[in-house]
């Protein structure tokens, strides 16, 4: 079992959990992920590792509460245990000195971006971070990323924090002004698609980290398959990072909606159950 050290809500719908997983903490590299199961009846959910403290044997997971599993996650207390944490999985990000690297994170994608930006900086790159979110309530790790980058741009769709607008706006400015050797983009599909289209115009190499639906995370089910160039690739074992200029984002976006109906059904039932239990406890 994997004991939870702390679990706090850092923004209205975003939680940060520190959990014991010594093997993962010892071995994980930037860009890798874990598969977690909250309890025995839970689903297997891929989560990118935001940070780790090998000497404590712990890893940090940041999650947005969007459905049953993440709601269950948010309800767990320190001392509780996760049923399973498997990993680290997937290929690590190719970290080396590229020159100037732009790290662009959208929404909850900022969490997996953090270790990548940190590692890029540590290997001598000039790192420019761009963080974007729908609003300030969904904007995370601003200070952490400010500390590991040479420059930072913040934007929100509604202007409640930083510039009003999309990540592509500051990115266009940077690409016009200076030589960029690599862009790493992690976030919602439309954001990664827009970033990749833009960097293609400027012919700048771009990595995107995909968040496909997975079951095992080890290459066994093929549920995370994605079209890259002309090939069918598995996000879990071939990725999770791919060349953004080759990914078929439209296909990926549609596949992510496969279980929309079932996810809503499950979440409604979970909320209903919580309400009943709450009433029973006199809450």
């Amino acid at each position: 079992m994997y004991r939870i050290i702390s679990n706090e809500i850092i923004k209205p719908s975003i939680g940060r959990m520190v959990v014991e997983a010594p093997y993962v903490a010892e071995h994980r590299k930037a860009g890798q992920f874990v598969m977690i199961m909250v309890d025995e009846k839970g689903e297997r959910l891929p989560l990118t590792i935001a940070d780790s403290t090998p000497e404590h044997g712990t890893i940090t997971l940041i999650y947005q509460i969007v459905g049953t599993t993440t709601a269950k996650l948010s309800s767990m207390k320190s001392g509780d245990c996760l049923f399973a944490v498997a990993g680290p999985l997937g290929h690590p990000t190719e970290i080396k000195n590229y020159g100037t690297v732009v790290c662009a994170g959208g929404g909850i994608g900022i969490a997996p971006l953090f270790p990548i930006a940190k590692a890029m900086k540590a290997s001598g790159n000039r790192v420019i971070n761009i963080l974007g979110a729908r609003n300030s309530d969904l904007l995370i790790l601003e200070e952490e990323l400010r500390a590991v980058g040479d420059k930072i741009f913040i934007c929100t769709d509604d202007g409640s924090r930083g510039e009003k607008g999309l990540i592509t706006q500051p990115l266009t400015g940077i690409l016009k002004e200076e030589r960029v050797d690599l862009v790493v983009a992690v976030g919602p599909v439309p954001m990664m698609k827009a970033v990749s289209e833009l960097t293609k115009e400027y012919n700048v190499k771009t990595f995107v980290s995909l968040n496909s639906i997975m079951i095992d995370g080890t290459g066994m089910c093929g549920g995370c398959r994605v079209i890259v160039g002309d090939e069918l690739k598995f996000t879990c074992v071939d990725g999770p990072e791919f060349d953004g200029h080759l990914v078929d984002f439209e296909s990926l976006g549609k596949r992510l909606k496969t279980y929309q109906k079932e996810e809503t059904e499950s979440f409604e039932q979970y909320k209903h159950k919580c309400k009943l239990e709450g009433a029973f406890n006199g809450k």
Partner: protein
Amino acid sequence: MASKAPRHKMPEQSPEERVKNFNEVPLGYSPEMAIAEAQRCLQCKKPLCVEGCPVNVSIPEFIKEVADGNFLKAIEIIKDTNSLPAVCGRVCPQENQCESKCLLGIKGEPVAIGKLEGFVADYEREVLHLPLVSSNKKTDKKVAVIGSGPAGLTVAGELAKLGYSVTVFEALHLAGGVLVYGIPEFRLPKKIVSYEIECLRQLGVEFVLNTVIGLSESLSDIKARYDAVFIGTGAGLPSFMNIPGEDLQGVYSANEYLTRVNLMKGYLFPEYDTPVIKGKRVAVFGGGNVAMDSARTAIRLGSKEVHLVYRRSLDEMPARKEEIHHAQEEGIIFDILTNPLRFIGDNSGRLCGVECIKMELGEPDESGRARPIPKRGSEFIMDIDVAIIAIGNGSNPILQKSAPDLQCNKWGNIIADKQSMKTSVEGVFAGGDIVTGAATVIEAMGAGRKAARSMAEYLETGKW
């Protein structure tokens, strides 16, 4: 002579009843039926059935004990060579193995060897509750087993019995490999698998779950920590057909579909959190046991119509006869001599149909089976909302990638000696689907037995 009696039919849930549940289909022999069936055995002096068994169970000997009502003795004889009899009694293709050699089968029906094996194993588990015998001979040698499927479990059991300290690494959150993620509950109840694994735990085998070897730790990292290593990582990489539309919502690999339902208990959604699309009209592509399992799972999930689309004819189907028979009884529609060309989706990317073409059989191909040839102009469209691709699995490359000196063939299967199961790396053995490509549970167990024997020899002598 008792052998003239017809084979005792196994009582089963009726098709109408069983398509509504995931309970096991056969209900099991009663002790009286088992004794009567065992009495049919001719007790051949040179038993051919034993040759037909990949692990050479002493079949006439155990059947003799069943006939005499000595079920305890019978299970002891089986367990001497087969560590998972409750599993094998259910999933072995006996009609191509032991039972195909039975002399009674020449004129009539062979002895129900598999059913008897299952009976005594169940009797031990449910009635006798035998205490576990762990070895008193302990050695300080350590063995790592990578993968907890049938091959790995066999190696673990055999070596633990010899007193070695065995650690099994498993990527998933449950041990059992294909026995838990692949084979459905109605064919192999999961309580049987967990019982077998519990037995191994009591023998002292340690299971390390949620751990993938080959990513953070390479094969040589593991080798450095153990005296011998067995690789039984199976054939877990699903093949797709490379036709248009395979990325549509509703198109599954059989591995994904079965894993969602079996391992993650998707059939109990939303009590369990993992969903699976319950299609109204489902098509399964393939003709093996996995295809049958998928089709029969779909009908149990409440699909109105389930098609099994296979490009050759019924005669070439590689599935066990019993599975084909059960599937037909359950109303699966067999579209033989048919091959898919492309999947068709609606505007939101959801599967709504498949275009197929009729096939005819030509000359035998390299597999010896008649080659299917498309019939020009016979294309047609079938409306479906779920497609399950069950055309086989390749080898999972994760571990091999971490070990450049481990020799593999062009399909990525590890090359191992057929008798000793030794690989190209000293101290490393391999067996099961990762060596042979997708095959059966019992063949993997046979390889596991051979490997265990040769590993014990290597551990004792240090000779490679």
